[in-house]
Every structure is written in structure tokens, then in C-alpha cells.
């Protein structure tokens, strides 16, 4: 036996010796709700599907309904799937009352198989996010924000709007992703912040920021400030960041133009995802996209009748490609709209961009619009290639007074 085979033999001996000591699997420590099904809710109240997939990053199970159609009190027996071996109280299938008095909310506790960990969940009937319109337009003046604190103690701002006296939380940012790797960052160090000195009152500030070593390691060294209508799920933030931004909400109205005021300051060095300096200039971007939440065959998700939302990989016509579900788009960063002369200005500058149909679409189907088959999103970013982690650190875009105007209703 030569030395090499002795070594191989010895290694095999070690592996088999160690492998034979593998202990029995410990009981599961996680306590997540995976799905929630509401079989007894009349489909006429329900928005989307009766089975809801619940993000592991949320303590809320939101059953989206048309609240305006809801009775003031309803008995429901939601059933749940949880982490294997976990128990839920009240038990899955228990009949509970959801009423206007309790805010259509009930609390559940999931305890892990190991018994050591538990999570509290709020299960609630929640009004589906719909693009609310006042007259023929919707104006966002970005005057409100609250500080959100993660369990890891990371803190950042969430900007929201108030529509006819009620909080409207349709705007989102990727701050939750930045918080993963920058727990100790101060609130104003986040890529998306709420600041003074807007056009009137406060405004949104988007700044392209370096993420740090951990982000560098996964080739995401940079976070462009972004702000959009939709939701953000951080589960994928480190794996495939583009899919963590889910764009758009239901619209019953046909948008005609996208308007906003901005100030921009360009960062010095334009770098790629490896932070190599390129001889290019950074630009901000903004776009509003009207789309149908279907796949390329014109179908919604077949197993779960949920709308298929655009994400960072599909939000623009050139990205969405063969899917062909983008109906119309109002995009700022086109050569004819972004003008070098008025790009970097000290004062707010106003821009108005008409929606243009995207082939093969050349018109809106008004019946389908009334049936809730169109979605609308608005996206702002401080670096136009920020989704590929290209951009110039320090590029800063201030946004205020964003307005969508809609086609007047016929009646």
C-alpha cells in the first residue's frame, strides 16, 4: 500500500466513522404558517385565491377581500399548513368570528415541533390594494412616513400616503433588503428616505449607496435608492434580488400620463456589479407601467388563481419580452425626455410623460378594465441600471408631487 492509498483509506475510515455517529434529527425549531385556506368565504367577497401563500418574513396572513362587499360579521374556519410538526392555536379549521368590531382580525400562535419557539400571527381580512383615484387623477405628495423597526433592531422609514383620511400603504422600497446587511445603519443612511425641503413640505430621497462587504460577496455591492408601488419580500433579497420587488396593484382606471417633480445629483464614479469603474454617466429613472397580471398564454397562475405580478426581471417591456403582458408604459429615461441641461438642477423640475401603448397592444379593453384585469405600478430609482447593481455611489434623486392622470369616466 503506497502513501496515497493509505491516505485515501484513512479518509474513508474517518468519514465512515463520523457518519456512523450522525444523531437522530432534532425536532423542527421553526414555527411558520406556510399557507392559509379559507374554503367557506363566498368567492364574491374574495379577491384572488382562497389559498394564500404566506411569506416566512411576515407575521400577517392577509386574506384579501373587497371590504365594501363584506357583511359586518362573518364566521370563517380558516385552515393552515405550518412547518412540519408545528402546532397552531386556535387549531386549524376552528370557526372564528371576523367582524368590523375586531377589525376583521384574529390572532393565532404557532409553536414549533421542538416546543421551544413560537410565532404569533394576525390573520385578517384586508381590503385588496386598489389604485384609488380622486376625480380623474391621483396626487401623491409624500408627506407621511413612519419608522419601521425590524426584530434585528435595524430601523428605517416607510413612506405612506393618506387618501381621503385613510392610510394608504401602496408604496414600498427595498430598504428591508438593505437592512439585512446594514443592521446598524442610521435611518438617514438607507437608500430610500423621507426628507424635508420637498417642493411643498417633505419629499422622497433616493440615494445610490454601497451595501458593504457582504453585498460585495454576492455581487450586489450597491443599492440604488428605489421607491415603487407594490411589495418587497426579502426572502430572495440575497439570492435573486430582482424577484424580491413585486410591482403593481389593481387599477379600474385607464392611466393617461405620469407626472412628477424631481431634483437630481449625479454620483461621480459609475461602477459595475464588481465595483469596477466604467466610463459612463449615471442617470435616474422613473416609469409607470400598465399591465395584465397574466402569463404569456394569457392565464393567471393556474393552481392558485393569483395575479402574476411583474418583478424586477420583467417590469419593463424590453425585459418582459415574449410575455407580452405590458399594455402601456410611461418611461422617463428615454433620450427625448431626459435632457442633460435640466437634469442636475438646484430647484425641482417638473416632468410629464404620456403613457404609450406597447405592441401588440393599441387600446384598452374597458370591460376587462372594469373586471379588474389591469394592474398599474410606478417605479422611481436613483440609478437607471441599479437593478443590475450598476450605478454611481451618491447619485441622489428627490421626488415630490407624483401624479397619475386617468381617462375621464364616461358616465
Amino acid at each position, binding site marked *: 500500500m503506497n502513501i496515497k492509498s493509505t491516505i485515501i483509506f484513512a479518509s474513508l475510515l474517518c468519514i465512515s466513522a463520523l457518519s456512523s455517529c450522525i444523531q437522530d434529527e432534532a425536532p423542527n425549531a421553526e414555527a411558520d404558517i406556510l399557507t392559509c385556506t379559507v374554503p367557506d368565504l363566498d368567492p364574491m367577497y374574495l379577491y384572488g385565491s382562497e389559498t394564500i401563500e404566506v411569506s416566512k418574513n411576515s407575521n400577517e396572513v392577509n386574506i384579501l377581500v373587497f371590504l365594501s362587499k363584506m357583511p359586518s360579521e362573518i364566521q370563517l374556519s380558516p385552515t393552515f399548513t405550518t412547518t412540519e410538526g408545528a402546532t397552531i392555536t386556535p387549531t386549524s379549521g376552528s370557526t372564528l368570528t371576523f367582524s368590523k368590531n375586531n377589525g376583521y382580525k384574529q390572532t393565532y400562535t404557532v409553536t414549533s415541533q421542538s416546543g421551544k419557539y413560537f410565532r404569533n400571527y394576525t390573520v385578517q381580512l384586508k381590503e385588496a390594494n386598489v389604485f384609488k383615484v380622486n376625480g380623474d387623477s391621483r396626487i401623491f405628495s409624500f408627506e407621511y412616513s413612519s419608522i419601521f423597526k425590524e426584530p434585528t433592531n435595524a430601523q428605517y422609514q416607510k413612506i405612506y400616503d393618506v387618501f381621503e383620511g385613510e392610510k394608504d400603504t401602496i408604496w414600498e422600497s427595498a430598504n428591508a433588503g438593505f437592512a*439585512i446587511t446594514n443592521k446598524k*445603519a442610521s435611518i438617514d443612511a438607507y437608500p430610500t428616505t423621507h426628507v424635508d425641503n420637498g417642493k411643498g413640505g417633505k419629499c422622497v430621497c433616493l440615494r445610490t449607496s454601497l451595501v458593504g462587504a457582504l453585498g*460585495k460577496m*454576492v455581487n450586489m455591492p450597491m443599492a440604488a435608492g428605489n421607491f415603487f408601488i407594490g411589495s418587497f419580500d426579502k*426572502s430572495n433579497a440575497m439570492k435573486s434580488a430582482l424577484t424580491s420587488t413585486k410591482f403593481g396593484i389593481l387599477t379600474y382606471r385607464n392611466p393617461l400620463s405620469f407626472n412628477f417633480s424631481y431634483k437630481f445629483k449625479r454620483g461621480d464614479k459609475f461602477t459595475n456589479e464588481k465595483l469596477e469603474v466604467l466610463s459612463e454617466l449615471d442617470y435616474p429613472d422613473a416609469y409607470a407601467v400598465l399591465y395584465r397580471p397574466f402569463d404569456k398564454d394569457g392565464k393567471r397562475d393556474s393552481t392558485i388563481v393569483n395575479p402574476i405580478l411583474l418583478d424586477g426581471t420583467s417590469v419593463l417591456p424590453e425585459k418582459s419580452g415574449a410575455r407580452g403582458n405590458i399594455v402601456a408604459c410611461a418611461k422617463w429615461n428615454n433620450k427625448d425626455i431626459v435632457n442633460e441641461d435640466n437634469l442636475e438642477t438646484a430647484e425641482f423640475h417638473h416632468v410629464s410623460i404620456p403613457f404609450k401603448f406597447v405592441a401588440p397592444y393599441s387600446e384598452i379593453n374597458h370591460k376587462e378594465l372594469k373586471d379588474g384585469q389591469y394592474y398599474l405600478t410606478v417605479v422611481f430609482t436613483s440609478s437607471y441600471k441599479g437593478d443590475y447593481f450598476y450605478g454611481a455611489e451618491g447619485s441622489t434623486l428627490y421626488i415630490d408631487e407624483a401624479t397619475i392622470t386617468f381617462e375621464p369616466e364616461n358616465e
Partner: protein
Amino acid sequence: MKHYKHIIAFVLLICSLSLSAQEKTEGEGTLMGPIVDQTEYAKFAFLRGVEYSIRVGYEIGGTSPMPLPAEIRKIEGFKPGMHFYVEGNVNKSFGLKHKWGLLLGLRLEQKGMSTKAQVKNYFMRMEGDKDEDIEGPFTGHVETKVENLYLSIPLLVTFKASDRWKLRFGPYYSHLLGSLDEDNFYGTAYDGYIREGDPTGGYIEVTSANYDFSENLRRWNIGVQFGAEWKVLKHLSVAADLQWGLNDIFKNDFKVITFNMYPIYGNIGIAYIF
């Protein structure tokens, strides 16, 4: 570069050891002469049954929790790597038959390996800068590399079982000098997910993330070793030892890895006896 200094110092030490061994052999001749004072004689008496030797060889083993914790679900790979040791020692035997003896040695040794394992709820800290880490239970795959360079002092009892066989047993003390590789204890967590803080914390999927716990290694380690030596020629033996570390390789205040890990290594080599 720091490590090379240690190696040079060690080689010099071995050389001086062997030189002094030769001087003492000459001392035997002096004894035959007419002038012998008491101290010279006492020195000679002490030197009777003293043997010096140098060993070099290959070291193989693992730095591992004992027993394996439930967090480790499957060992997916093990590479012993090329790790060597060099040892100089002094062995003094006692009694009329010189069967029992004491051995004091100095050993420069590499203890290292790399493993791949499938893990579940394996507590992990993925590091970036000091402000940017994610800590919590990780489920997925972990590759661990250990590359430690130790200077060890064994103090052993020896037993001469026959003319050819000699056994040795006893404790050793190891001091961690550094690493001949990039770092001491590092690796990658890949294809899995981490929960922030505890199993109910934020859920983040991980394609690949590095970790490095080298800073958290304890500088010293004690253990016991057992070995045997077989004399091939008058001055040449083949030798093997098993070393079993008795204290955790990590400092007490290091809480990321929730179980203790011990260096358990065997070596095989040749010994030259002066």
C-alpha cells in the same frame, strides 16, 4: 511571514538539540580518562539511558465536535490535505532494565482538513465588515476549512516493550502559532437559508456566503496522545501517534458555534535516533 520565523526558530532548536546530543556522546570518552570529578560523574549517570531523536511525518485527522451534534445531518466530504509535523525529543529511561522512561518533546505540527456537511439549524455568523453580519440558524450546506499550525510540547511516559517496540503515552500542550494557509478556521455556507437570530427570525435564502472564525480560536490546547515506535534499524524507527484534544478549540466567549470542537489527529512518520 510571521510563521516562517517560528519555523526557523524551531529548526535551529532541533539542530542545537542534536549538537548537544553529540557533545554528550563525547562526554562518555572523557569518563574513561583519569580525571573525573563528582559533577562530571553525576552528569554521566544522569545521561545513562538518555536518547535523542527527531521525527518527521504526515498528520491526518479532523477538528470535530464529539459526538457530532444533531445539527449535522450528513457528512458530504472530507479532505485531509497535506499536513506535516517535525518533532525533537529527549527520552530518559529509568531502572535497571530501562523499560520505563519519560519523554519531553517539542513538535511543530500542522493540524488541518476540510469537510463538507449538510446541516440543519446550524448556528452561523456570515461576516462582512463588523457592522454587517447575519447571525442565526442556517439550514443547508457548510464547507469548513481548518488550517492550524501548532507548537506542541508532549510530556510522555515511555515503555520499552521489546528491543524493537516502544510505546508512549501522556499529555501534550499545544500553542497555536498561526496558519500556513489563508486563515485558521473559515469556510462557506451555501445552498440554504438562514433565519435572523433564531428559528422564528427573518428568512433569507443564501446562495453562498463566507464565514471566518479564525479570530475566535483559543491560542492553547491540551490533550493526550498515545503512540508506538518500531525500530527498523539501529538509528531508524517508524512511529505513529494518536492525539486527542481535550479542550474546545474556540475561546469561551465565542458563542456562534454552539458545540465544542476538538482536534483529533493521528500521525505517522519516521524517527531518527541519535
